[in-house]
């Protein structure tokens, strides 16, 4: 990563919820679909517009259903393509070390 490159940072726990829900809005509150549509897509568009990286902190909440992560990040890749998402998005998950890699895997295999 270029140290001079601008980074826009967000935290799911602080900006969305500490209790993430299921995949779809129809299944429950704070879903991956809701997060993507109301937050992630806007953050992603903003980062790309500014030529910046989008840094998402996955820590600080109660945990994630895999389908939440898939719908949020895999769903973003289904709209914008895997390469564009992987190029812009930086994910951090110190509390669940496997989670960021799992999300990247969902982005790579989003179809």
């Amino acid at each position, binding site marked *: 990563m270029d140290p001079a490159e601008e980074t826009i940072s967000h935290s799911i726990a602080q900006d969305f*919820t500490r*209790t*993430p*829900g*299921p*995949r779809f809005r*129809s*299944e*429950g*509150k*704070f879903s991956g679909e809701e997060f993507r549509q109301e937050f992630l897509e806007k953050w992603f568009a903003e980062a790309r517009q500014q030529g910046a990286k989008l840094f998402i902190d996955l820590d600080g*909440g*109660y*945990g*994630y*259903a*895999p*389908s*939440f992560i*898939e719908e949020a990040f*895999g769903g973003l890749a*289904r709209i914008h393509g895997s390469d564009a998402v992987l190029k812009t998005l930086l994910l951090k998950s110190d*509390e*669940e070390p*496997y989670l960021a890699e799992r999300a990247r895997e*969902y982005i790579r*295999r*989003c*179809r």
Partner: protein
Amino acid sequence: MSIKFYHDLQRFNKQRDVFVDLANVNKITPDAIALLLSIVIRIGRVQGVQISGNYPNASSATETIRESGFDQYLKSSLPTTGAPRGAIVKRDFLVDAKRAEGYQAQRLIDFAAKDGGGLLRLKAAYGHLLECMANTHEHAGRGSIGSESWWASVFKDPERQCDCFTFIDMGVGVFESIELNLRLKLLNLVGAFRPNILRDLLEGRIPSSTKVAYRGRGLPSIYDSVVKSKTISRLMIITNDVYADVQGSRFVQLPHSLEGLLLYWEVPYGPS
């Protein structure tokens, strides 16, 4: 308490009050308590009958039941116990318009996190509870999507230094879901054995019944938590007539079928 006992109880369909006689029960585990509760409450609701019962003569078994959160749902004649060791939640049809709610899982995780090393070790369990609730919503119903209820519990076991989680739904079970049934017919044609099908499902070798490639993360992700990330242990599954002890790699066909799905797993206490 055997699978046959639960099998018979699930099939109770008479219009008369039920007395659950637990007098001769010597030992009862948290998953058995949650299952018993979910079945008798269902009978009471569906059949419109009164449910009553007694406690085991064995004091340790009675203590386990009383400390599990069981009395919260069925009134007890005994005085209230001290600090509970367990908590039980269920889908609330009146409050929850939707079906997989984080706050319900949060209640169990908060309970488990009180003594035993905090929240971080429980994050995978939170995700699995949500995934199970969503699966019930999506796949377990006999008619429309979202028609089926679920129960979930946690029980603290200080002797074995772990939290014991149970998730139950009384839906159709993995092998009776409509989409999988079509697949099952094909597998039956080539002589596939149900326990092997469950193993394949857990290992991600059977695609989602939704037929969408990126769906179907639920059961495989729980399996991965045992065999790969090791964030949970002792995963056991009973669905229809199949029992799986994942850690022991034991998948067997049962002589009696259990309607729906039961998952049990443990999260070891962390350093205090």
